């Protein structure tokens, strides 16, 4: 089992836990994702890394119905399958862009509760890697 996070700077992933890494500004409180050395709001360089909440609500969504240009996209399998993506509002922190496990417009609505899950993709060198995605809160336990 050599599957690793697609980028250790953006997330922590161990067998029983996935968490996104963000940064918080000591001066104005702005939260950013992925972590940044300087604050996007006030420019201060006093930022520290924080673990972001793993629950949120859907802020906006779309479905990618054609294969994105490759590179940079790395197809997940031979046949392209449409995938959902959106922005997820993590309460009181930040709105993150993420893959969604659902690609059915009837199943997606702004405001629906979601939870963070690990999601297997291929990295740019073709190795299996773990990125993050959001799934409906009501779905069964982690995959």
């Amino acid at each position, binding site marked *: 089992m050599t599957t690793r996070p697609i980028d250790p700077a953006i997330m922590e992933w161990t067998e029983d836990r996935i968490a996104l890494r963000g940064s918080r500004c000591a001066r104005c409180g702005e939260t950013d994702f*992925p972590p940044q050395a300087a604050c*996007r709001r006030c420019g201060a360089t006093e930022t520290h890394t924080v673990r972001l909440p793993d629950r949120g609500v859907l802020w906006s969504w779309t479905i990618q119905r054609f294969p994105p240009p490759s590179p*940079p996209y790395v197809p997940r399998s031979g046949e392209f399958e449409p995938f959902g993506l959106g922005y997820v509002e993590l309460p009181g922190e930040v709105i993150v862009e993420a893959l969604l496990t659902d690609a059915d417009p009837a199943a997606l609505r702004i405001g629906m509760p979601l939870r963070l899950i690990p999601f297997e993709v291929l990295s740019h060198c073709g190795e299996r890697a773990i990125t993050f995605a959001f799934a409906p809160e009501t779905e069964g336990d982690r995959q």
Partner: protein
Amino acid sequence: MNAVDIVGVGCTPFGRYQDTTARGEAVRAIRIALADAGVEWGDIDFAVGGSMSAGSADTLVSDLGLTGVPFVNVFNGCATGSSSLATAVHAIASGAAELALVVGFDSHPRGAFAIRPEQMGLGQWYGTTGLAMTSQFFALKIQRYLYEHDLPPRLLTSVAAKAFRNGSRNPNAWRRKPLTEHDIDNSPMLSDPLRQYMLCSPGDGACALVLGAAQRAKRLRSDPVRVAATTVRTRRPGSFEVLSPSLSIQRGDSPTVEAARAAFELAGVGPADVAVAQLQDTDAGAEIIHLAETGLCAHGQQATLIDSGATEIDGTLPVNTDGGCLANGEPIGASGLRQIHENVLQLRGHAGDRQVPNRPRVAFSHVYGAPGLSGCTILTR
């Protein structure tokens, strides 16, 4: 500060070039603009222009004549044309130049723009997992906007149908076939809620302008068009921009809001004075959002405005009279100047089949580009 007028315009047909090149068309557009102004290349004492992927504008001097003219290259995404125009306006207003040439041209391969995330300070994971797509951003922005302002998605169809209707009256447009709402609603869904005919295609094009100090312009032609304001603004915290792995939870205005407000202030006119407007319509949703962000209508008022026919050529607020990006495609460097070209024709009363009735006095144009900047220009006569 010297007042600045537009005395010459040149635009060649947009599309996908087969027997010519974007550089060749840029030279042709420049020659048309010079002839329109009644001046020679040797009279130009400042030049500025840009292109994303068709070459450096200053190298066009090898076709125009090596006059030693100061020539500045600009690249500001889809706001390249407006930023070039602003640079020339400042040069003339300051007295550094009297007669300036502005040129924009571009050529892009078929399909969605390919993004290199690492050039934009984004991690490799972002593109690898399929998130580095400008069309996704447009979809996500309009999806949220329709929800927040309780607007019906059918407006996207209306906007697209108008674009192709207007484009069919524009001899320079790439897409000249009017499409019915039925055609548009039956085109493939690409990124919900945007269908194929609601998204513009990257394409080829070239456009040029000749600008002059007002005193000089008056001697050149009897109907100069005044650049009443030209502004460029980048983003502030909380705006929703393309290629953002995250957004601030404290929401804020887009750069368009600030650029438009500054332009109206500078020009000393208000949104209600605008008689014709060209707005960045990279997708049909962008036109809807930009109508409000520029101040031309209130947020949420778009359904009433569009349903009433106000944004049609014979309406009270004609928008994208030449078919916009939807019908003309988007050659990035040329796109903003195409809008200026159209507004100049409208103010002169030379827009042919698509002329807005009663020859307008105030024309507004707006561009928006990655990674979060906007340019607004107000022209008057």
